[in-house]
């Protein structure tokens, strides 16, 4: 009874120090569990969604996807700018060429006038000019040579112009190719946006295709949606139409060049497949 017992240590100061220590330990442990809870961390959240494996792989790295798209857009824009620069340079050259031609023409006209004046003087002083005719002949020869030279220049110019035209045509076809790429990118963006608003109707099956006509304005807003070619499943058609209406606008289209918009996006025809939208 009077031997020392372990309770004596606990009982000092009415047992408060050990109580504080224990309470702190309990809460510390609790916080530790809370912050290292696998349910609350990302790994398990991802494992939790195996049904949307496609969705997770796409969304797991949305930044990468966005970056790729941005790069694509940037590249398109750069190509566009480059082409613009080239066009400007060509126009500049054409202007210079024209100025030179005008110069030459003025020269020709002036020469012709001088010549006519000279002829008038000749007629008035035919007798007096008999001795000078040889000289005059020389002058005429010179003028002919000059004309021939001018014709030669004109021919050369024609050749250059044709080459320039060909080059421009090549450029245009190149632009068409990059335009097609840009169109693909924007269509993909539209597809993705629509997909995020899409409520999957239970009757949608892979292999269905619905062709829809979307009318857009340059700000990316949807003006009207129309089913051009039904997938055969009214519910799917309707769900896609509803998704586009809900999307309301595709703000990415604002960055697009006006010509590209006018050629491909003012009246856009898109084919939707359930497997595209699920992606």
């Amino acid at each position: 009874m009077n031997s020392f017992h372990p309770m004596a240590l606990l009982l000092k100061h009415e047992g408060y120090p050990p109580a504080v220590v224990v309470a702190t330990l309990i809460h510390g442990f609790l916080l530790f569990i809370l912050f290292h809870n696998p349910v609350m961390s990302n790994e398990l959240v991802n494992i939790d969604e195996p049904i949307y494996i496609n969705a997770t792989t796409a969304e797991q790295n949305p930044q990468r996807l966005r970056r790729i798209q941005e790069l694509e857009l940037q590249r398109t824009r750069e190509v566009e700018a480059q082409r613009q620069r080239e066009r400007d340079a060509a126009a500049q050259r054409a202007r210079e060429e024209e100025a030179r031609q005008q110069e030459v023409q003025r020269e020709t006209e002036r020469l012709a006038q001088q010549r006519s004046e000279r002829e008038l003087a000749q007629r008035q002083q035919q007798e007096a000019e008999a001795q000078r005719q040889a000289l005059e002949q020389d002058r005429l020869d010179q003028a002919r040579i000059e004309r021939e030279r001018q014709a030669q220049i004109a021919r050369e110019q024609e050749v250059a112009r044709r080459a320039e035209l060909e080059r421009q045509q090549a450029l245009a076809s190149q632009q068409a190719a990059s335009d097609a790429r840009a169109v693909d990118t924007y269509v993909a963006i539209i597809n993705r946006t629509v997909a995020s608003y899409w409520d999957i109707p239970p009757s949608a099956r892979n292999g269905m295709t619905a062709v829809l006509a979307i009318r857009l304005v340059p700000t990316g807003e949807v003006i009207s949606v129309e089913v051009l070619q039904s997938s055969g499943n009214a519910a799917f058609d309707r769900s896609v139409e509803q998704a586009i209406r809900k999307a309301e606008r595709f703000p990415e289209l604002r960055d697009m060049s006006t010509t590209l918009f006018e050629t491909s996006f003012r009246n856009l025809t898109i084919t939707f497949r359930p497997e595209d939208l699920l992606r």
Partner: protein
Amino acid sequence: MGESMNIWSMIVDATWIGKLVMLSLLVLSVMSWVIIVQKWIIIKDAERELFNFEKLFWSGMDLSQLFRDGTTKLKKEELTIIGMENLFRSGFKEFTRLRQQPGIDSDAVMEGSQRAMRVALSREERVLEKHLPILATVASVSVYIGLFGTVWGIMNAFFDLANQSQASLAVVAPGIAEALFATEMGLFAAIPAVLAFNRYSASVNSISDSYYTFMDEFSSILHRQAHSKRAED
């Protein structure tokens, strides 16, 4: 909110009312745990002392010897005498002191020693019951604080939802998770407090019952002694 959702970001992103609720619940929880452990130590000690002293008292030992043992123990160890032994000591001390007064009535002696024991008893009870009301308060209030935090959080989440043009689960989910976290904390504080309060009230009741019983028994012993001594005189 971003794709990574964890407890820490949830706490950091909470509104200041949410933070206040969480903080007060944490404080209440820590407080109730301090009291739970402290009461556990005190009550266990009281029960142990009760058992030991009762055994000693009924072993047929001479009472004055027992009192002297207690005095030496009090001197030797740093422990204070608590519980039943304290009752015994105050009653016995008063009894012997009054008995030494010449010409005192035996009923007066009994009355004096009983009064001394009652005082000691109420002191012991106060030690045992100290802080138990705090546990009861934490048990009942922390649930409501948690509920308040939850309702506030969900209300905010729905305001956010109303401000969005497109309603999606991702908009409200963090707010609701934060809101539910408040309830979770409230429950975490309340459940141990309720359990401990019930448990400790029962223990304190049974201990003070034992004290009362002992007080009566000891009084009857003293009564017998007083009157037998008086009869001898």
